C-alpha cells in the first residue's frame, strides 16, 4: 500500500463535503419524524429526525438537523399557530432543508422552512385513527353512558398544582354564589410535554386505587395560550377515560377541535373555570329539583287537607239535616197520633151519648106509666104483678090498672095458650 497519496482527515471530510454538495445541490422537501428537539442558549434548535416508513414503526433512517436561531423563532411561531401544536418529539414534519456536511460534526440537515399543514393533516389522521380504534373496540361512549350524581361533591382533580387553570377552578368552585360545598382533591400530574400521557394515566390509577369514593374526575389544565393539546389525542389516555368507573369531565383548553380525551369524556368544556361552573350549575339544578319536589308535596298536602275539610263539612251538614228531618218526622207522627186520639175520643163520646140516649129511651119504655099510656094494662093480685094466667085461679080477685085508674074483677076461668 503506497502512502504517497495520503490525505488528512480534514482533507477527506472536505472532499466528502464537496462531493456531497456537488451531488445534492439546492434544497429538498423531506418528511421525517422529530425524535428529539433541543434549544441551546443561543437560540439554535437541534433536532434528531427519524424515518420509519415500514409498518410497525421501526426506525429505518436517522439524521441530525438544525434550525438556526435566525429562522427558528419565526418558524416555530408560525408552525405552532398553523398546526396547532409546537415543534416537539413525536410529530411528523415536512420541511425544506439543505444537506450540510461539516468536517467536525459530519452530516446534518439545515432546515429553512416547515409546512405546518402537513403536520396538521398527519395529526388529524392519527387522531382519526385513534377514534376509529376506540369505536371499533366499542368503548368510545362508555364513560358518557355513566350517570353523574345530582350533587357531585367529592371531586378528584387531575392537574398541575401550579397551573393557573387549577387555581381558577378551585376559586370558582369554592366561591360559588350559592354556597355549595365541594370537596376537590388534587391528583398532581404533568399536563404538557412528553410525560403527559404517562403522568395522567398514573393519576387516574391513583384515583382508582384510592379508598375514597369520587363522584367525578376532572381533568384540567390551562394558562398557556398556544399549548400543545395533542398529547390528549393519545389512545392510552382516551382508553383509560372510557374505562373509568365515574364520569370524567375535561377542561383542557381546546380551541377548535376537541382532543380525543375530550371526545370520550362524560362532558368536555373549554376551560377549568367552565368545569367549575358546570358543577355548580349541576348542583343548582339538583337543588331546584328538590325545591320543586317540596313544593309539590306541599300542594299535595294542602289538597288532601282541603278535601278532608270538604268531607267533614258534608258529613256535618248531613248529620245536622238528618237529625232535623228525624225530629220533624217524629213531630208530624206525633201530631197525627194526637189527632187520631182526639177523633177517637169524640167518637167514643158520641157513642156513649148514643148509648145513653138509647138506654134512656129504653128506660122510658119500661116506665109502667108510659106503657099504660100506650093502651097496655097491668094486672095485680094482692098488690103483686101477675105475669102468667097460671098464677090465677077462678074466683080470685084481680086488679087491672089503667093509665087513668083501675078496675077490680073476679076471675071466671083461666086458659093457657096452646
Amino acid at each position, binding site marked *: 500500500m503506497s502512502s504517497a497519496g495520503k490525505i488528512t482527515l480534514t482533507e477527506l471530510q472536505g472532499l466528502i463535503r464537496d462531493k456531497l454538495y456537488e451531488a445534492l445541490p439546492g434544497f429538498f422537501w423531506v418528511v421525517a419524524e422529530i425524535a428529539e428537539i433541543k434549544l441551546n442558549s443561543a437560540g439554535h434548535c437541534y433536532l434528531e429526525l427519524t424515518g420509519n416508513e415500514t409498518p410497525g414503526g421501526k426506525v429505518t433512517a436517522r439524521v441530525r438537523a438544525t434550525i438556526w436561531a435566525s429562522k427558528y423563532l419565526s418558524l416555530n411561531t408560525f408552525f405552532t399557530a398553523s398546526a396547532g401544536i409546537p415543534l416537539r418529539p413525536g410529530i411528523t414534519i415536512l420541511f425544506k432543508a439543505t444537506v450540510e456536511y461539516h468536517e467536525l460534526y459530519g452530516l446534518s440537515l439545515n432546515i429553512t422552512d416547515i409546512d405546518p399543514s402537513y403536520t396538521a393533516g398527519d395529526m388529524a389522521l392519527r387522531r382519526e385513527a385513534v377514534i376509529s380504534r376506540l369505536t371499533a373496540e366499542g368503548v368510545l361512549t362508555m364513560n358518557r353512558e355513566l350517570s353523574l350524581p345530582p350533587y357531585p361533591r367529592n371531586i378528584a382533580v387531575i392537574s398541575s398544582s401550579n397551573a393557573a387553570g387549577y387555581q381558577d377552578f378551585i376559586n370558582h368552585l369554592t366561591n360559588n354564589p350559592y354556597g355549595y360545598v365541594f370537596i376537590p382533591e388534587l391528583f398532581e400530574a404533568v399536563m404538557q410535554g412528553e410525560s403527559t400521557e404517562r403522568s395522567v394515566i398514573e393519576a387516574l390509577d391513583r384515583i382508582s386505587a384510592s379508598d375514597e369514593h369520587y363522584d367525578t374526575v376532572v381533568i384540567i389544565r390551562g394558562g398557556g395560550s398556544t399549548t400543545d393539546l395533542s398529547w390528549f389525542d393519545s389512545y392510552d389516555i382516551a382508553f383509560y377515560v372510557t374505562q373509568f368507573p365515574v364520569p370524567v369531565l375535561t377542561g383542557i383548553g381546546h380551541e377548535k377541535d376537541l382532543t380525543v380525551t375530550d371526545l370520550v369524556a362524560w362532558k368536555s368544556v373549554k376551560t377549568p373555570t367552565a368545569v367549575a361552573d358546570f358543577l355548580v350549575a349541576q348542583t343548582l339544578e339538583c337543588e331546584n329539583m328538590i325545591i320543586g319536589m*317540596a313544593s309539590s308535596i306541599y300542594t299535595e*298536602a*294542602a289538597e288532601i*287537607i282541603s278535601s*278532608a275539610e270538604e268531607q*267533614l263539612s258534608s*258529613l256535618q251538614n248531613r248529620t245536622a239535616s*238528618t*237529625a232535623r228531618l*228525624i225530629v220533624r218526622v217524629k213531630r208530624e207522627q206525633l201530631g197525627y197520633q194526637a189527632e187520631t186520639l182526639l177523633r177517637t175520643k169524640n167518637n167514643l163520646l158520641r157513642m156513649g151519648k148514643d148509648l145513653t140516649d138509647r138506654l134512656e129511651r129504653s128506660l122510658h119504655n119500661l116506665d109502667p106509666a108510659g106503657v099504660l099510656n100506650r093502651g097496655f094494662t097491668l094486672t095485680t093480685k094482692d098488690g103483686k104483678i101477675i105475669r102468667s094466667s097460671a098464677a090465677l085461679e077462678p074466683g080470685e080477685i084481680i086488679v087491672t090498672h089503667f093509665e087513668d085508674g083501675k078496675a077490680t074483677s073476679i076471675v071466671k076461668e083461666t086458659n093457657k095458650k096452646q
Partner: protein
Amino acid sequence: MAKKEIGFNEAVKGIEEILKNIEEGEPDIDRLSEDVKKAAELIKVCRRKLRETEEKIDGIMQDLKS
C-alpha cells in the same frame, strides 16, 4: 292516665257510622241528640287535627325556606 286520642280516619269512620245509623236505621229520638253530639265532637276533633297538620306543614315549609 290520658286516653290515647282517636285518629283522624277512625274519627271520620265514627261520624260515618253515626250518620248511617240515623239515615238508614230506625230513628231513635232518645238517642238522636246523643248521636248528633257525638258526631259533632268527632267533627271537631277532625277539624282540629286538620288545622294542626296544616300549621305543622306550613312551619316545615317555612323552615325549608329560611
